[in-house]
């Protein structure tokens, strides 16, 4: 699929009575991506995560539009189309195993339990996550393995739009190779957006890279 952002604006209001000022995280971002893999780079606070969350339908933009295959897509529609892997993997139920977590989030995305577990097992192998780790309690996993579970959750949806925010964070070399292969494979049928602070990993993953600075797209570096 093809995803398009036109003049996206997102301002986070200051907390009431805080004396702070609103934060303009996206200041008219426009980009086109997919089919295939597109990289997104930019310094801390440049708006990458806000852009991902807006494209995923988690946040609602204050201005601008998102188009999916040329048609305007409201946030509810984007939540159907997009799978988002957040930069922080701590968005799971810590008392449950990764397998149970993936079964639960799979159900919310419409995946039958059997299929969710089958996909989880297959994807875990690709990322170097041991079968035993899928059945261990989530809070007993290392940060790197938590990140792998987070990636499995996003990839297993088989969504036409895949948004990977800092997906290489905490991964060992073998897992990074496995992830690069998965990104390349998924990019053949879906639009994949990947962000990373590692220029080498980003260039390996994506032929086309868009730079974001102070909430604006700065063109292809």
């Amino acid at each position: 699929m093809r995803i398009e952002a036109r003049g996206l604006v997102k301002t986070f209001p200051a907390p009431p009575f805080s004396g702070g000022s609103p934060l303009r995280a996206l200041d008219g971002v426009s980009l086109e991506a997919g089919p295939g893999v597109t990289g997104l780079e930019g310094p801390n606070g440049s708006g990458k995560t806000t852009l991902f969350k807006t494209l995923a339908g988690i946040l609602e933009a204050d201005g601008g539009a998102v188009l999916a295959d040329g048609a305007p897509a409201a946030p509810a529609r984007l939540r159907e189309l997009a799978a988002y892997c957040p930069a922080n993997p701590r968005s799971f139920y810590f008392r449950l195993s990764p397998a149970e977590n993936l079964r639960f989030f799979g159900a919310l995305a419409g995946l039958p339990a059997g299929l969710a577990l089958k996909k989880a097992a297959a994807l875990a192998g690709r990322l170097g996550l041991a079968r035993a780790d899928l059945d261990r309690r989530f809070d007993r996993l290392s940060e790197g393995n938590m990140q792998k579970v987070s990636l499995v959750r996003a990839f297993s949806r088989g969504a036409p739009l895949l948004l990977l925010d800092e997906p290489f964070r905490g991964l060992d070399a073998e897992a990074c190779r496995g992830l690069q292969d998965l990104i390349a494979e998924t990019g053949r049928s879906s639009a994949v957006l990947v962000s990373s602070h590692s220029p080498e990993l980003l260039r390996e993953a994506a032929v086309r890279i868009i730079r974001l600075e102070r909430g604006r797209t700065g063109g292809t570096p």
Partner: protein
Amino acid sequence: MSWARIVIAFVRRDFLAESSYRLSFALGALATLANLAVFYFIGRLFGAALAPELEPYGQDYFTYVFTALAFFGYIGTGAGSYAGRLRQEQMQGTLEAALSTPLGTVPFLAALTAWNFLFATFELGIYALAGALVFKLDFAAANWAAAALVFALSAGCFAALGILSSCFVMLFKRGNPVAWVLNNFEGLLGGVYFPVAVLPAWLLPVSALLPVTYAVRAFQSAVLRGAGLTEIKGDLLALAAFDIVLIPASVWLFGLAVRRARRAGTLGEY
């Protein structure tokens, strides 16, 4: 997307999470029994004589408070558990992940507290067994069909209050005026621990504003005296009116609260 699959997924998740805290589970069941014992001994202290305010129900104090606590314990689940569950999701960092899926507001609300209602049903079973086997209470006169209708209308109404309460959690995280009213005044002014006739006259109009007043009175009348639908018609109509207004309003307001959180970027905050 199948609602049943969503509800089952939430129940399975909550069962696994709750049963991983085994001591808490056991202590919760013990607390229910300890609570009942307190009222049992209060009842023994004052004997089986009927207070004038209990005459309309035709039972002693312990039977009255036992039935009200069992009933309120169940319907109160709706009022209390939505905000609690939502807050838990915020603190765990899982709310944003759950709401980044295609899951709609109504199935989310239907599934969020399904486990709490299942557990409350289990607690209700404990109450029923304790009432029959330990305290030897007599419910021979009960009109169970009328009681079931009161139960259904009350559960819907209290779930709506719980959803309203969770709107504040969604927007403000901490500081929840609906929960404050429910926790501090429902039991006091709604006739749970004693008939509202005991209250001073100036508090009765306040009591009349609370759905719990109608719910407890109608349930007590149906279970303790076997009152029929005609006799409790006024209370049933009041509960139905609360349902008609509160259920759609609460779901709509919850949808607005989620949307506002998406706009303000606070869905993932706690």
